């Protein structure tokens, strides 16, 4: 293997690409499938990189860096763009100084997301160009083009990947870093960067002119490529769908769009005129299909054959276009699922076991603890977006009649990173508006679900340097909340007693659970054992849903066993056992 050849994921390739293109600053909030971009950028010491507490802040940090003249990268998952939408839409007006790349990693099929919104729509909505790579080589190469485009047209660029482009690995030919000649310094330009009505009114026409110029650029850029082959079928496609099309329809002619907004109208019409049948194959929304139809181009097939939901595949395209269905045996029926679960020793386990026992309504949030919604625990009853648990819980408590009925009481549950992200303002609202609800902040000192990233509570920055570690109880008290209670998540009696007290109170209580993530910080105690003489196989311990426990049947006898390789000795199962059968 030659030295400049590597097999990289799309995310690794983007990190390499921004390094090669002379980017100076990168900011992000972790979110699948985008997280590994910054985790790789941090290894390039020419780039200053940081985790922001949320996507809006990440983009604003990026805007500052761009105004100062530095090439800049900001990354997030698709729903993160919703959070960052406020600065984004006005950034479209101010434009940039140093090129600014905003990566939106979308998640068709929702492998790890709460929705499958198609963020190409943001490009059109905010009137900024959208670039979509199809493999890791393009993930790297298109970065440089995108940054040039950003500077040439004075616009942020939305760089859209999907789970398959971000997480698939393919071969990349590497290049070298080119430092950018532009000076990084602060130059005051009030009409460009201070968006008062008087200046914004002058910027808006420039945004409209920019789109017209970008349309002209779209006609000639190498980002949009025509591959003529047999002209019976012509396909217009983008991103990962291009790979599926090439595999499924090797004979077809293809117009591969790398710049998917704005569209090259002439190029599309020219291509459409040269093929007998025009297909439009894109995952998600009919984003360019609708625009192409508006151009008056006859589209033979698009979303009539390809769904709005989920991901495409080569086999599916072949079946829909050629009617060729591969011989596939049925999957084995009735197998037990293997959903993700709390890790053995996870501090969330006991909390959710008690919440279920108390029968309260759990207003949830986004993080590892969202797994508390899955069976057999099944103790989370609403989860919408980052930071919403406390505000939703407050809204519920304001309208539901106060009674002793536990099913009508609400407990909001949020993790530390999600609290810093957008839960703080929810809590501020609740206490300001005299809420009587209960909020639990599960502080495990990491951003767990995305793989254990640092955050303002972890005491470290992205590159591992020591940093502040926010004192959550002190912060909550500073909001004016008097009832701030700490609990030990490995003591079920403590959890239950303090939750009951909080639920009986007319005043808001915030319960802070301080317990570092056992996976991230490798916390482990000697494994526990089951005394088979005492075990009655009542299966009560199995309700804590720990993968280290299982029921073993030997002849007529059955008892629970603990896998010593998995158990980290947290002791939750031992507390649940009524026969004192689990111990050291």
């Amino acid at each position: 293997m030659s030295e400049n050849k590597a097999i990289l994921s799309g995310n690794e390739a983007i990190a390499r690409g921004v390094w090669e293109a002379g980017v100076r600053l990168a900011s992000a909030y972790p979110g699948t499938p985008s997280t590994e971009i910054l985790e790789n950028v941090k290894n390039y010491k020419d780039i200053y990189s940081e985790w922001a507490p949320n996507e809006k802040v990440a983009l604003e940090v990026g805007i500052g860096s761009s105004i100062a003249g530095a090439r800049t990268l900001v990354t997030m998952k698709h729903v993160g763009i919703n959070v960052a939408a406020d600065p984004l839409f006005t950034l479209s007006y101010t434009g940039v100084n140093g090129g600014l790349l905003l990566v939106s990693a979308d998640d068709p099929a929702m492998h790890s997301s709460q929705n499958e919104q198609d963020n190409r729509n943001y490009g059109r909505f905010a009137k900024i160009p959208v670039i979509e790579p199809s493999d890791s080589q393009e993930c790297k190469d298109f970065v440089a083009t995108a940054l040039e485009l950003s500077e040439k047209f004075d616009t942020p660029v939305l760089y859209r990947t999907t789970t398959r482009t971000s997480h698939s690995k393919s071969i990349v030919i590497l290049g070298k870093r080119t430092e950018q000649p532009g000076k990084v310094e602060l130059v005051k330009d009030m009409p460009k960067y201070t968006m008062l009505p008087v200046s914004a009114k002058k910027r808006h026409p420039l945004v409209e002119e920019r789109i017209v110029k970008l349309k002209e650029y779209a006609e000639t850029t190498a980002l949009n490529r025509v591959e003529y082959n047999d002209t019976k079928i012509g396909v217009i496609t983008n991103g990962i769908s291009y790979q599926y099309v090439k595999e499924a329809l090797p004979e077809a002619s293809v117009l591969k769009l790398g710049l998917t907004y704005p569209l090259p109208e002439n190029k599309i019409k020219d291509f459409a005129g040269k093929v007998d049948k025009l297909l439009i194959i894109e995952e998600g929304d009919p984003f360019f299909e609708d625009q192409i139809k508006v151009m008056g181009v006859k589209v033979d097939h698009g979303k009539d054959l390809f769904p709005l939901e989920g991901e495409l595949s080569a086999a599916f395209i072949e079946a829909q276009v050629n009617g060729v269905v591969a011989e596939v045996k049925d999957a084995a029926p009735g197998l037990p699922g293997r959903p993700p679960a709390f890790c053995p020793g996870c501090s969330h386990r006991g909390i959710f076991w008690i919440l279920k026992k108390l029968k309260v309504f759990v207003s949830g949030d986004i993080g590892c603890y969202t797994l508390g919604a899955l069976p057999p625990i099944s103790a989370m009853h609403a989860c919408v977006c980052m930071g919403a648990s406390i505000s939703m819980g407050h809204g519920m408590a304001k309208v539901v009649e106060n009674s002793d009925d536990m099913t009508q009481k609400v407990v909001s549950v949020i993790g530390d990173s999600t609290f810093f992200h957008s839960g703080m303002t929810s809590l501020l609202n609740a206490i300001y508006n005299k809420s009587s609800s209960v909020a639990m902040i599960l502080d495990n000192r990491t951003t767990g679900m995305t793989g254990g990233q640092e955050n303002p509570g972890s005491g470290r920055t992205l590159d591992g340097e020591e940093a502040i570690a926010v004192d959550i109880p002190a912060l909550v008290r500073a909001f004016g909340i008097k009832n701030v209670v700490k609990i030990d998540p490995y003591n079920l009696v403590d959890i239950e007693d303090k939750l009951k007290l909080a639920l009986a109170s007319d005043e808001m209580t915030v319960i802070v659970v301080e317990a570092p993530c056992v996976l991230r910080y490798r916390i482990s105690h000697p494994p526990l054992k089951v005394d088979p003489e005492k075990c009655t196989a009542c299966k009560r311990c199995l309700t804590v849903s720990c993968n280290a426990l299982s029921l073993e049947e030997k002849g007529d006898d059955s008892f629970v066993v603990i896998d010593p390789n998995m158990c980290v000795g947290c002791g939750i199962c031992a507390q649940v056992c009524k026969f004192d059968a689990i111990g050291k």
Partner: protein
Amino acid sequence: METTNILLAGVGGQGVLLASQIFTSVAIEADLDVKQSEVHGMSQRGGSVTSHVRFGDKVFSPTIDPGEADFLIGFERLETLRNVHCLKPGGTIIYNSMRINPSTVAAGVAEYPDDVAAQIAAFGEKTFEVDGLGLGQQAGNPRSSNVVMVGAVSSFLSLPEALWEEKIRQLLPPKLVDLNLKAFHLGREAVKGK
């Protein structure tokens, strides 16, 4: 070279991704085009994990469609059975006989089927069961059962043995290299002549 499709299926934490990495780096070294795809995120924490490895002269799609896998490499019995429909007619199943209970089974709300091996055998014409855990233990650590499986598959692929060894040396931490080379050869021998 026609594209070879290898689907790896196992449980989060079993080293499926490291195994995939060995396949892809061997293929790239053999000057083939390679793609590999997996999904992170919710698949951690003991959930089902699959990884798609494809190599040949030119590879487009990074994923293997149902009915297209030349090899199904199962790192656990149930996960093997869950993916048997991905196998191409005439394809080969090589799987680790070990059992890991899903959380639903551990919690007593679902049952682990007791005839998994028979069901797998009924699917594939060429099926090889490997005692991955036992051979891993024999190599020095049960966690090396993923490399045992790589070894088993390697004996079906016409790629030089030295290349596999070289990549194992490169990809594993130095203190684990000898153990994993042993695991690789135990796996390779386990299916030979069958």
